[in-house]
């Protein structure tokens, strides 16, 4: 009996220490996000003292700083954070649900679907603003349902879904290339946004639909975090634990696609952020609790840091997607190799 209770004790201790680690990591990530956010506001082409930045933020008119900080840097930083949070959340939800780190929305075609729809809406239909977002969300959902439906044969297997997603994605990419090649006024920066993702030309008004989406979809996802965790054990085990598997899958698909598509409609498919956030968060947090919040924060950090690098630390200016794409590549190959060692597929 004593050995049993001591075993219980050690399990409890272990859990406590892991929960402790999780809290520390989340706090650290939050601090890093805030620090990067502040850095992008303070230090750009020119240095603006923190005091002035603060005065701009609370609405005062500071000569010389109001435009640079209020009109240029703030919208950009806000959009980066919101898009990063959305990509991080959406990506990790898919990865958890399909039990495969490689089955993230940017690989299985959902990002390309949203991006293709946004390009089509902007270039061919000359829409703008909220309509583009609606278009992108609808297309993202459409692609998700399409891929899911096509991979249905005696149930959906993660492997088949991933492969079909890759095929659909290839088709959508060539559609983007086609529409862009036919765009009447060829604008390289604008095209970059839809090919790799960029936060250039951000406006504060754009952040509102994204913020609303993040609140609704993100809130819904977080409230289901426990059920999503249970899905990691496999559908049968989750069902045995009392999770309504079919329902939670639908909720996760709709919310995650909504998040990804809303962000993609504004920034384009920022390469690899949805894909990398989850695995990085998992390495940091360890095997304890839901990855949703840490992964969202990692996403925000990736976009903020990537955009800062692309703007100021490299010899010429790159959109954020190029930086995350190039930096993410080696890590990604490492991840593919490592995942494969354990079999890879779920």
């Amino acid at each position, binding site marked *: 009996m004593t050995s049993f209770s001591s075993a219980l004790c050690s399990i409890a201790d272990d859990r406590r220490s892991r929960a402790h680690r999780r809290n520390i990591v989340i706090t650290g990530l939050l601090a890093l996000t805030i620090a990067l956010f502040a850095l992008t506001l303070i230090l750009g082409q020119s240095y603006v003292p923190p005091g002035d930045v603060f005065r701009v933020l609370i609405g005062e008119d500071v000569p010389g700083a109001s435009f640079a900080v209020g009109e240029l840097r703030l919208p950009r930083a806000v959009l980066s954070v919101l898009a990063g949070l959305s990509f991080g959340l959406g990506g990790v939800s898919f990865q958890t649900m399909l039990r495969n780190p490689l089955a993230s929305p940017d690989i299985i075609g959902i990002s390309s679907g949203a991006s293709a729809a946004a390009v089509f809406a902007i270039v061919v239909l000359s829409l703008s603003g909220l309509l583009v977002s609606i278009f992108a969300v609808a297309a993202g959902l459409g692609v998700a349902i399409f891929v899911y439906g096509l991979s249905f044969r005696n149930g959906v*297997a993660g492997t088949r879904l991933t492969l079909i997603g890759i095929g659909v994605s290839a*088709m959508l990419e060539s559609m983007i290339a086609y529409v862009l090649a036919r765009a009447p006024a060829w604008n390289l920066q604008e095209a970059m946004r839809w090919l790799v993702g960029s936060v250039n030309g951000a406006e504060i008004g754009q952040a509102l639909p994204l913020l609303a989406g993040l609140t609704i979809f993100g809130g819904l996802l977080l409230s289901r975090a426990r059920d999503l965790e249970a899905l990691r054990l496999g559908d049968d085990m989750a069902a045995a634990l009392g999770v309504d598997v079919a329902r939670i899958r639908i909720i996760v698909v709709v919310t995650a696609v909504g998040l990804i598509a809303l962000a993609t409609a504004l920034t384009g498919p920022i390469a690899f952020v949805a894909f990398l956030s989850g695995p990085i968060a998992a390495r940091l947090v360890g095997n304890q609790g839901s990855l949703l919040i840490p992964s969202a924060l990692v996403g925000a950090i990736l976009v903020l840091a990537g955009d800062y690098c692309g703007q100021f630390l490299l010899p010429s200016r790159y959109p954020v997607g190029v930086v995350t*794409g*190039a930096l*993410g590549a080696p890590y990604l190959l490492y991840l*593919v190799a490592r995942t494969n*060692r354990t*079999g*890879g597929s779920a």
Partner: protein
Amino acid sequence: MTPAKLTSFIAPPYCGRPGGSRSIWLPLTIFAVVVLCTLSLLIGSRDVTWSDVLSAIGGHVDSIGEAAVAMRIPRTLLALFAGAALGLSGAVMQGVTRNPLADPGILGVNTGAALAVVIGVAWFGMTSAQAYIWTAILGAGCTAALVYTVGSFGRGGATPLKLTLAGAATSIAFASLVIAVVLPRGDIAGGIRSWQVGGVGGATFERLAEVAPFLSAGLILSLGSARKLNSLALGDDLAAGLGERVALARGIASFAAVLLCGATTAICGPIGFVGLVVPHVCRLLVGVDHRWLLPFSSLVGGGLLLAGDIIGRIAARPSELEVGIVTAFVGAPFFIWIVRRQRVRDL
């Protein structure tokens, strides 16, 4: 046992096919390719008459119609050769990796070739077609090795899922790198962008002549390894038991495939899915014996790319749709169909 008997032994879905079907399909396919060639000369943004076509083939370029046809001749030939090379390369890759989803586009090999060419143009000021071709072959080879290595780690070796994921991931990464290289160079961005969509539009006889040696070398090497691919289809152990030097056979065949798709990418830009679709269609027509499959794949590949190019010219008249876009739209549904056909544990 000869390889032919062995392959029919291991491939029940294709066995029992009357030997005569090959001799029916061969003339039919050749006829179809000839018809497509004629259509390709006839159809375009300018309407021409039959007499224009005939006199242009005879070497006259007096009227506008004849000049238009004369422009279409190298284009038609390039589409034919590029398609043949891609189809053959896909068939060899599927044989070497024993993997139904292998294709230079899916495995990211084309993107690797593109990255190498773009780096060569942007950083080393490459201009000659010869340099393009060598660089593209080098890039394609390195990428193929990388993707295959990454994809074959772990349980079960190089399964379709792992190879495809490694290829897709590499593709995304390399596409970002291509943009990173091109973006600061506004002077070359336009040319590279149009090259990257994948098309046979700007073909000339000089370009054809430059790429021809590479394509012929790849053709001879891959047709020569047909028998080896038949042995490899039995599995490495059995192939070794039959006296095949497995690694050498793989190496030669892969080199041929890389040569073919690298050279094609250098001239036409990355064109996807031809190498995926064609071998599957050909296997339905002539069975799994590579001695028939490989030549047929090159014929059908040439036909497919020609058809794609013609469709691209009709679909967006008076402008044109690049053939790379057409093949993606035809090929992606086909890819999905193949995936759906497979049992999950085989993925």
